[in-house]
Structure formats: structure tokens, C-alpha cells
């Protein structure tokens, strides 16, 4: 397999990016109303103006902090409860309806309920947590259940210490499920977290800035904030997945 950073791969990526930038530019020219659809150039210009301001970085760091905190809390809680539910079937039966409900409740319902109960400051943390937690929990259960039974029998016969069984047998079985689940949950946590911020308007948040852009019909700024979220989400996702893969090796 060719490495992902090969010149050919890089060129392919560049061409795909240029193609979609071209599509974006063409659509903006077709619409021809910057207040409805900002062009790539308008967006970059708006971002360039925002970049040196403290309001930009305060919003970026605020949202990143809240969403990352929600994600990591969900990861820890999902792993912990997943392992406990795998070990104790009574716990699994007990929390199963709650988790199934959490998986199906619309994100908007969560956002409104959390806003009513806890206010807007911790909204993105709790919403990201509620969205990610069931995914991590179910992935943990599935991963642990996929552990090779023949190897577990072998470990039992050879009286292999529990810690070694956990590290050598359960962890390699769990990790593909966990990284796969995290890959989708990371994107979801940003989508839900930013949506929550737009509705709840907490101070120092991207959601608040997006809301203000909407109020002032500053479409280029709205696009610039969206671009910021895409970049943040991508960098965050790649960093977390890289960390997980390193631990899983």
C-alpha cells in the first residue's frame, strides 16, 4: 500500500479541493447575492479579518474546551460503564432501556431540556456527552464481546493474570470498535455541540458568534465560522484517533 503522504496522493487531494472550491465559487456566482451565499474569497477575507481578534480566539477556545470536555467525559463514562455492563449482566439489563432511549432521542430535545435544567454555560459539554456516551458504551460492549473465546479459554487454562488478559486479549478486541465509534462520535459531538451553542448562546462560543452572524446577516462571517468548525473538528478528530491508535498498538 502506498503511504498516504505520497506525491500522487497529495496531488489528488489538491485537485479534489480545487474542484470543490470551483463548485463553491460557481454556485456563489450563480446566486450572485453575497448576503445569501458567500463566495470562497469573501469567506477567506472574513476569516482573515476575524483571525487577529481576541473574540475569535476566545470563541474558538471556549467551544473547543466545552466540546472536548464533553467528548472525553463521554469516552471515560462509556468505557467504564461498558466494561462494568460486560462484567455484570444485571447492570447491563438495568441500563439498557436508558441507553436505547438516549440513542433515539432527537438532539434538539436534549438541547432544550439541558438548557432548561442547567442553563447555557455547560450546555455544549452536556449535549456532547449525551450524544457520544451511548455510542462509546455500545462500542465497548460489542468490542469486549468480540474477544476470541478460544484465547480466553487458553488464558484460563494457563492461569494468565487478569491484567495481562485485559491488555493482551480484551484491549486488541475492543480497540477497532472503539476507534470506529470515536471516528463517528467526534464529528457528532461537534455538530451537536455547536447546534446547542447556537440555541443556548453561551458567552465565548462559536455558536454565539454564528447566531450573531445570522442576526446581522453577515453571511461571509457565518461561512468563516463554519470553516473554522470544520477545521477544528478535523484536527480534533485526527488528534484523538491518532492517540487512540497509539494506545491500541
Amino acid at each position, binding site marked *: 500500500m502506498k503511504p498516504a503522504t505520497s506525491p500522487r496522493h497529495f496531488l489528488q487531494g489538491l485537485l479534489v479541493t480545487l474542484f470543490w472550491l470551483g463548485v463553491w465559487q460557481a454556485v456563489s456566482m450563480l446566486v450572485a447575492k453575497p448576503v445569501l451565499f458567500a463566495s470562497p474569497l469573501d469567506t477567506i477575507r472574513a476569516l482573515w479579518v476575524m483571525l487577529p481578534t481576541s473574540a475569535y480566539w476566545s470563541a474558538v477556545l471556549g467551544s473547543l474546551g466545552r466540546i472536548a470536555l464533553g467528548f472525553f467525559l463521554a469516552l471515560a463514562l462509556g468505557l467504564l460503564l461498558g466494561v462494568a455492563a460486560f462484567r455484570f449482566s444485571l447492570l447491563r439489563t438495568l441500563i439498557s432501556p436508558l441507553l436505547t432511549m438516549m440513542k433515539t432521542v432527537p438532539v434538539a430535545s436534549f438541547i432544550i431540556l439541558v438548557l432548561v435544567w442547567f442553563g447555557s454555560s455547560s450546555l455544549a459539554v452536556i449535549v456532547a456527552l449525551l450524544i457520544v456516551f451511548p455510542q462509546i458504551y455500545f462500542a465497548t460492549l460489542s468490542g469486549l464481546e468480540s474477544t476470541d473465546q*478460544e*484465547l480466553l*479459554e*487458553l488464558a484460563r*487454562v*494457563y*492461569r494468565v493474570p487478569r491484567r*495481562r488478559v485485559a491488555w*493482551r486479549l480484551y484491549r*486488541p478486541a475492543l480497540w477497532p470498535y472503539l476507534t470506529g465509534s470515536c471516528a463517528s462520535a467526534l464529528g457528532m459531538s461537534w455538530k451537536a455541540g455547536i447546534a446547542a451553542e447556537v440555541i443556548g448562546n453561551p458567552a465565548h462560543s462559536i455558536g454565539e458568534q454564528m447566531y450573531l452572524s445570522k442576526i446581522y446577516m453577515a453571511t461571509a462571517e457565518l461561512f468563516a465560522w463554519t470553516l473554522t468548525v470544520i477545521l477544528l473538528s478535523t484536527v480534533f478528530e485526527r488528534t484523538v484517533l491518532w492517540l487512540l491508535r497509539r494506545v491500541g498498538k
Partner: protein
Amino acid sequence: MDIQIKDLSHRFGEKSVFEHFDLTLQDGGLYGLTAPSGRGKTTLLRILMGLLSHDAGTISQGVRYSAVFQTDRLLPGRCAVDQLLFVRGSKKDRAEAARFLAGLLPENSLEQSVGELSGGMQRRVAIARALWAESDCLLMDEPFTGLDEATLRQTLDFILAKRQGRTLLLSTHQKELLTDYPFEWLRI
């Protein structure tokens, strides 16, 4: 310690595999187990290891077993040395484990992932692992599957040299190849 099986009965549904079966394995004994397929060789070994509960009878407790199963049961993606260290020892025992394995495998294969080894080499890793582990009794279920006659003899010599007085119970379909070894043959 001797291993005693007394009045063992076991059924799979309607099919009776053992009925009032008795067997004594003397400490340090060398036993070969032979029977037509489906007569319960693997079942007997699994009952001894505690992996299968039996319907009636008593079996000596407190025996530490190490086993070669019908399938190799190797940790995927790990090398031969890691397979040994999984059942006994730690990083500091790596060199000793490699020396142990070198008696049965080419030295340049010891750090290769087991997935890259041939079927016969994987089998020998599984056998070496059983001998490396601390145990009172070695149970080997068709250990020579996939080995040619010369490798079989080399492997059996290694087993006998490394069993260190431990009881060995070995099930096989290849009894005719083992006639010049001092096995006591059991039939079930």
C-alpha cells in the same frame, strides 16, 4: 501428583460419551490416548482442564495444566517469543524464552509475527508454549497435526527433553509413528 478420574459420566444430549469411566495418570507418566474420531478424546482433555463440566464423577483437583489445543490458539500479530511470555514471564525473560524456542524453530523466525509462519511452525510455537508454562501436567490434543515425520520426531524429542518430569497425556491419530517411544497407550 497422580491425577485420578473416578466414575466419570458425561453426555452430549442423548449421546453418552463417558459412562462410569476410571483413569489414573501417575505423576510423571507418559501417556498416549488413542480412539476413533468422536469417541471423546478432546472431551476428556477439556474436562480435565475444567473447560467442560461433567455430569458425574470426581477428578483430582489442584492440578496445574498446560495444553496444546486442536487449534494453535496463538495471539494474532504477535511473534513466537510473545506467545511464550503471554503464559509465563515478563520482558526480562525475553532472551530466555527465545533460547527455549530456538530448540524447535529457526532463530530468524522467533521475532516474526506468527501470521507469517508456516502452519507447522505455528504448531511448534503452540507446543513450545505448553512446555514453557509452569504446570504439573501437559495435555496435548493432536499436537503433530501438519508436521512431517522428521519434524514430528524432532518435536517429540524436544517435548520429552523439556517436559522435566511432568505428566504428559497426548492424544493422536498417528500412534504408528510413535511406537519406538515409551508411551503407555490408553484407549477410550
